[in-house]
């Protein structure tokens, strides 16, 4: 069983104008699988508590656990995590959690990752796990972001070796980028992702509306719904 335990903010780093990497020091952390999340609990001085789930970006040994949080402007918890929390601050977490939306280095089949916005966080963990385990499973990532400035973990993704990465933008694309800014549609999915196959696993993560549209599109292209794993972050 898992319950709340103390964590200390070890460091923070800005990822984009709205997102931040937060590294927590969690004594006794036993590691985690790529794709798992944790629950984070904040307690106000008057005792009021708020709980939110955050995917884990890090994998591997040690007691440092990295999160990637994007700010929901009118949100209760994320503006605090992105703009206010500082090294040395204490909070509570429970985890690692979940064994459904995970990739294990022993899984040898091809993998298609589809991220929307901060939905890259657990998928980045999968790319990290693939690298640290020297897995040769074919990996492909389709990452939809608002603009090139809104890409989380950009330097790391630029050096992701033989992971085939395609970016798509919804608001503004770089100069000379062929695809015009728009949401991912069925044609994009047909052109930019791996075709259905018996041994293929697809992981889709991002805001609920994004995940819904992508998962429906993939199933309409012939993917087995049981092999399209989803992690909805909430929101529209």
């Amino acid at each position, binding site marked *: *069983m*898992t*319950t709340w335990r103390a964590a200390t903010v070890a460091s923070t780093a800005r990822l984009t104008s709205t997102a931040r990497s937060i590294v927590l020091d969690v004594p006794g952390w036993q590691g985690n699988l790529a794709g798992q*999340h*944790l*629950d984070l609990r904040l307690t106000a001085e008057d005792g009021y508590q708020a*709980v939110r*789930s955050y995917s884990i970006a890090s994998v591997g040994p040690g007691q440092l656990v990295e999160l990637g949080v994007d700010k929901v402007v009118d949100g209760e918890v994320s503006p605090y995590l992105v703009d206010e929390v500082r090294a040395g601050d204490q909070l509570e977490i*429970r*985890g690692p*959690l*979940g*064994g*459904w*939306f995970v990739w294990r280095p022993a899984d040898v089949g091809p993998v298609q990752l589809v991220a929307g916005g901060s939905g890259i966080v657990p998928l980045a963990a999968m790319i990290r796990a693939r690298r640290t385990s020297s897995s040769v499973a074919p990996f492909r990532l389709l990452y939809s972001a608002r603009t090139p400035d809104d890409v989380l973990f950009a330097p790391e993704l630029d050096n992701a070796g033989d992971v085939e990465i395609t970016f798509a933008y919804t608001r503004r694309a770089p100069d000379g980028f062929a695809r015009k800014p728009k949401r991912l549609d069925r044609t994009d999915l047909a052109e930019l992702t791996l075709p259905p196959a018996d041994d293929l696993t697809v992981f889709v993560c991002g*805001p*609920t*509306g994004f995940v819904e549209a992508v998962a429906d599109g993939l199933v309409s292209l012939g993917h087995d719904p049981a092999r399209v*794993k*989803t*992690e*909805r*972050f*909430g*929101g*529209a």
Partner: protein
Amino acid sequence: MPAHVDGNALAGPMSELFAFDVTVATAVCGSCGDNAHMGQAMVYVSAMGHVARCRSCGDVLMVLVETPNGTMLNVRGLTGLRIAPTG
């Protein structure tokens, strides 16, 4: 209807109660008989608690309410829950 998340979000509150991972347990819907991992259910999270609904027919599978005085778990919408062996 407010936006939902996946059954993955049940992992934390359920892990306070049980040793098994609820997201890989297979739930049989009492209304339509659909078989799915709980990780595939639609979960509505609010300050009141978590409501898990069948991905297929939308009926309630499970309600979980955490309060300072304990946790209320209602599984009336499930015909069964198959718990995968650990390891």
